[in-house]
């Protein structure tokens, strides 16, 4: 546990000591703030359809674009940088297992990801100041953000453990995330009921819509937890495998 904590705090520090963190945070807030203001303005129009503003905010087009772009940026150097620089050698000769390294690093990137979203809580505050907010769907929406982000970051961590090149890691991450994303969108191409259901089970977009409406389905939570765990397990195996060559 101590080893996981040591890795976690070092990794988190590395994020906040690099300019990358602030660049990402800046643009993240600019884009999200812009989206939020557009949503609020269009919903203020009396002719607009009624609905909670944050439901449009979560799960909108920009939401997915941001997620797709941010995941590889956050995860690409996580392990591949250690492999490239050779610091993995002193790391893996310390009394720490591959699983602990992956766990520490993953928790760090997850924390950083959460801290990217934290300022958007202010939007809910602004809405609450001006109107009545139903807090259930808001909380569920943030839970969805954490679940989906957690899975994508686990995929990115896995890709980063596979290669010493950050570029390759980023590319593999984008490819895997896109694949997963698209799988959930093409269910109407199939006629077989089982295929449709299976694809529906991994439909990120569908899940996020539910979360934004305030629906927290335990099947979804199990799916995200187990899928994230699976990719983290693969990441620790990939890191162990690096030693054999």
């Amino acid at each position, binding site marked *: 546990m101590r*080893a996981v904590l040591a890795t976690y705090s070092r990794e988190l520090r590395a994020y906040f000591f690099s300019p990358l963190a602030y660049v990402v945070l800046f643009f993240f807030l600019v884009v999200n703030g812009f989206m939020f203001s557009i949503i609020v303005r269009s919903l203020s129009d009396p002719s607009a359809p009624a609905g909670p503003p944050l439901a449009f905010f979560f799960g909108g087009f920009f939401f997915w674009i941001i997620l797709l772009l941010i995941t590889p940026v956050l995860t690409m150097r996580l392990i591949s940088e250690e492999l490239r620089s050779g610091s993995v050698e*002193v790391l893996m000769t310390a009394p720490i297992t591959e699983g602990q390294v992956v766990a520490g690093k993953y928790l760090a990137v997850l924390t950083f990801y959460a801290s990217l979203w934290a300022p958007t809580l202010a939007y809910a505050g602004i809405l609450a100041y001006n109107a009545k907010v139903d807090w259930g769907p808001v909380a569920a929406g943030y839970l969805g953000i954490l679940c989906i982000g957690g899975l994508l970051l686990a995929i990115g961590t896995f890709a980063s453990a596979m290669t010493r090149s950050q570029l390759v890691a980023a590319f593999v991450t984008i490819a895997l995330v896109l694949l997963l994303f698209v799988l959930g969108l093409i269910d109407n191409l199939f006629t077989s009921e089982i295929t449709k259901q299976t694809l529906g089970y991994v439909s990120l977009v569908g899940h996020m819509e539910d979360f934004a409406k305030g629906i927290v389905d335990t099947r979804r939570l199990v799916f995200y937890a187990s899928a994230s765990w699976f990719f983290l397990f693969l990441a620790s195996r990939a890191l162990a495998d690096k030693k054999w060559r």
Partner: protein
Amino acid sequence: MIEAQNLTRRYGDFTAVHGISFTVGEGEIVGMLGPNGAGKTTTIRMITGFLPPTSGQVTVAGKDLFESPREARRQLGYLPENVALYGEMRVEEYLAYRARLEGLGRSEVRGAIGEAAERCLLADVRHQLIGTLSKGYRQRVGLATAILHKPSTLVLDEPTVGLDPKQIIAIRELIRDLGRERTLLLSTHILPEVELLCNRVMIIDRGRIVAEGTPEALRERSVGNPSVRLTLKGAPDAGETLKSLAGVISAHAGAGAGAENSAWVVEYAQAADPREEIFRAAVARGWVLLEMARERTTLEDIFVRLTTHDQAGEPLSSDRSDPSDSAPSAPPTEEVPS
């Protein structure tokens, strides 16, 4: 204490290390010598648990490295060949991180950092970013992390490579200091370093141990007869006289005397020391003795002989290579800085 048994490592079809076995005892400093690509780093990586061997066993301080890796690694401090550090961290932060990674408690961390930083002469850069440090300082940070958790065993892979002479002296002093109370395995291809620091030497070539022993024992075992090198002013026909002296086996003309002087290499039997006789002979015959020095076979000679291969891949036999000719010239001993 390190025990390696039958360590073998293959990379695909290529066998980098062939069944190496050795022991490094408590309080011993053992040097691992070998040309580049001999398998030193592969061996070291197996001993430190970074690289799993294809077959074989390693125990560190009595703990099996593969059955109880954590306990074994806790006893082990490791300085790899390329010290890779996190450039964005300050020295002190990095040491604190490593200390916690090694499992030191909150209360122990501070003391451990202070001690390691002091021993490795890092006190004046403690708050500096690692990325801004010179190579010598980085090496010292690497060493500091290796001794941070007070391991009983240290493994250092080429600790002085790429340093300037002053830094080399400082690092060597530190190594000698550390070796007093620990088991220490040192890999290097710098021969004087081994003679300076090590109680025992292993010479590795093509993945096998080709010689092992104290530097003195290796020297004695592999050398033929000792010899004395002379430079005389004039006296081009001194050879006959020299040959007739007691204990002398042969005397032949040496090189590098210049036109007016003559140089001689006088080979003599192990037990004899003909230097006094030579001096008396010179006085009796009126030779002007410009130089007389006993030639010591250096580790370098042994090393070159054991690791030079002809085209068939066999080591050159000792009678084919006169060590004084084939070895690149290097002083047999180096000035030991105090």
